[in-house]
């Protein structure tokens, strides 16, 4: 029976290996956040938030960066949310067995795996050159919208899938049309899940850097954008720019900007997580 002893030893040994690996992952997250807080927290003050960029690190602020991020967030929402939800509804409620729908489905799985920088190349040719938007907010928002569309579509589909058939049948039974059923019954019931997908997608969009570099978003923009056709920068671009400079003071600026960016990202993810938990409880009738 010594074989059993060895097996039991391996069994409990793996338990500790598993805990160690899991804690390693969490520790990295901790070190990460701790390091950035130490480097950047002292730099954050009201001036840092409300100042334009500057060649002097101590005077530079993130005003153009966070307003750019806000613009991008707004424009991307306007473009991507209606498109994503519509496509999700089509695939789940209408196109189930059609050839077009299955083609779109394979295609979405593929799009979700295409590196973001490739979307940048698409945006550069189509939005910047062909449509002649230049490196403007609208070009950036369009590019990011295409990037996050698959996430919204998949989220919408899953949320709709979770709505019980009995709800649909009840509506049809009262003589409602398909669209009436979707609009009055299915979408409200699925809204929590759809919203979760949207928030996660938008949080992805505001963290992206690579596609915006490719479409020519500038790292140094000395004014706040006033229209979608203005040039822009966003927080990740500003961080990238500051971190790329040799002076230590700019690194500190970078860390401070990272704190702001992480705060936004984590808050959005937290909301998404909260909504998901709440919604999952509700759907289990």
């Amino acid at each position, binding site marked *: *029976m010594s*074989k*059993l002893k*060895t*097996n*039991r030893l391996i069994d409990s040994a793996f338990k500790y290996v598993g805990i160690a690996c899991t804690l390693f992952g969490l520790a990295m997250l901790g070190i990460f956040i701790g390091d950035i807080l130490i480097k950047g927290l002292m730099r954050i003050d009201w001036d840092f938030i409300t100042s334009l960029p500057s060649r002097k690190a101590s005077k530079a602020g993130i005003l153009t960066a966070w307003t750019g991020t806000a613009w991008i967030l707004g424009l991307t929402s306007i473009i991507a949310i209606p498109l994503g939800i519509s496509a999700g509804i089509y695939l789940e409620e209408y196109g189930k067995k059609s050839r077009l729908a299955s083609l779109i489905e394979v295609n979405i799985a593929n799009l979700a795996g295409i590196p973001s920088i490739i979307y940048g190349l698409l945006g550069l040719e189509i939005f910047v050159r062909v449509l002649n938007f230049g490196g403007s907010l609208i070009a950036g928002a369009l590019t990011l919208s295409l990037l996050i569309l698959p996430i919204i579509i998949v989220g919408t589909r899953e949320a709709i899938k979770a709505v019980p058939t009995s709800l649909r049948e009840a509506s049809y039974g009262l003589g409602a049309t398909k669209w009436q059923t979707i609009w009055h019954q299915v979408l409200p019931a699925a809204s929590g899940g759809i919203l979760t997908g949207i928030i996660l997608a938008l949080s992805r969009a505001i963290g992206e850097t690579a596609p915006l570099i490719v479409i020519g978003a500038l790292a140094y923009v000395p004014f706040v954008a006033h229209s979608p056709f203005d040039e822009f920068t966003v927080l990740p671009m500003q961080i990238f720019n500051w971190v790329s400079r040799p002076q230590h003071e700019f690194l500190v600026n970078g860390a401070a900007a990272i704190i702001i960016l992480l705060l936004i990202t984590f808050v959005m993810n937290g909301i998404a997580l909260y909504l998901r938990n709440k919604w999952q409880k509700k759907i289990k009738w």
Partner: protein
Amino acid sequence: MKNIIETKDVNVFYDTNHVLKDITMDIKEHSVTAFIGPSGCGKSTFIRCLNRMNDYIESFSMKGQVLIDGKDIYKKKVRVEELRQKVGMVFQKPNPFPKSIFENVAYGLHIQGETDKQLIAERVEKSLHRSALWKEVKDILHKSALSLSGGQQQRLCIARTLAVKPSVILMDEPASALDPISTAKIEELILELKQHYTIVIVTHNMQQASRISDRTAFFYMGDLIEYDKTKDIFTNPKKKETENYISGRFG
């Protein structure tokens, strides 16, 4: 015949939910003992206490003693793996591994570290003979177990259990997912196996209990209401609840 399983004042809780109350019973060697009762009466929980299959349920807690061959299996130093090799289990739905038929039966030997191929092959064949499956599968041993029919899969699961040479086999509604013909085969098999093993079976089906078991225990709402020779339970129950259940007045 001696008692191979004895339980003393077994109480089981899921969190604060008291699901089994003071269960004390003896089970004799080389016999078939059936547990009957309505859904939720605790019979499945109780059978799973006999080889500690409830260990992985986090809300589970137990008081009392379960003795197998006179030894308390809930003592700290007991190796639960060793216990389960001795007290095997067959489940409600056939649950073959997504491996070949041969590998399914050989699995128990593999995990014990057996490497002798000759011995493994012999044991696999013998187990499949005993579970009356050999004739049907001898030419397709290396096909996936999932390709078998439900009834065959369940007999494969029995063969898999036999291959580790248990002395007790626990069966938790082994025929509930099967058609009548497959059920009949399983019942026949249980009567065969009785010569070599002690069998405890949970069943919903009272005819089944009366056909195959020597003794029957009736559970209701977490209590062991009555436990006696099967013949007596079905012809001359002593408790009102048993009589009501047997005659189909509830459950």
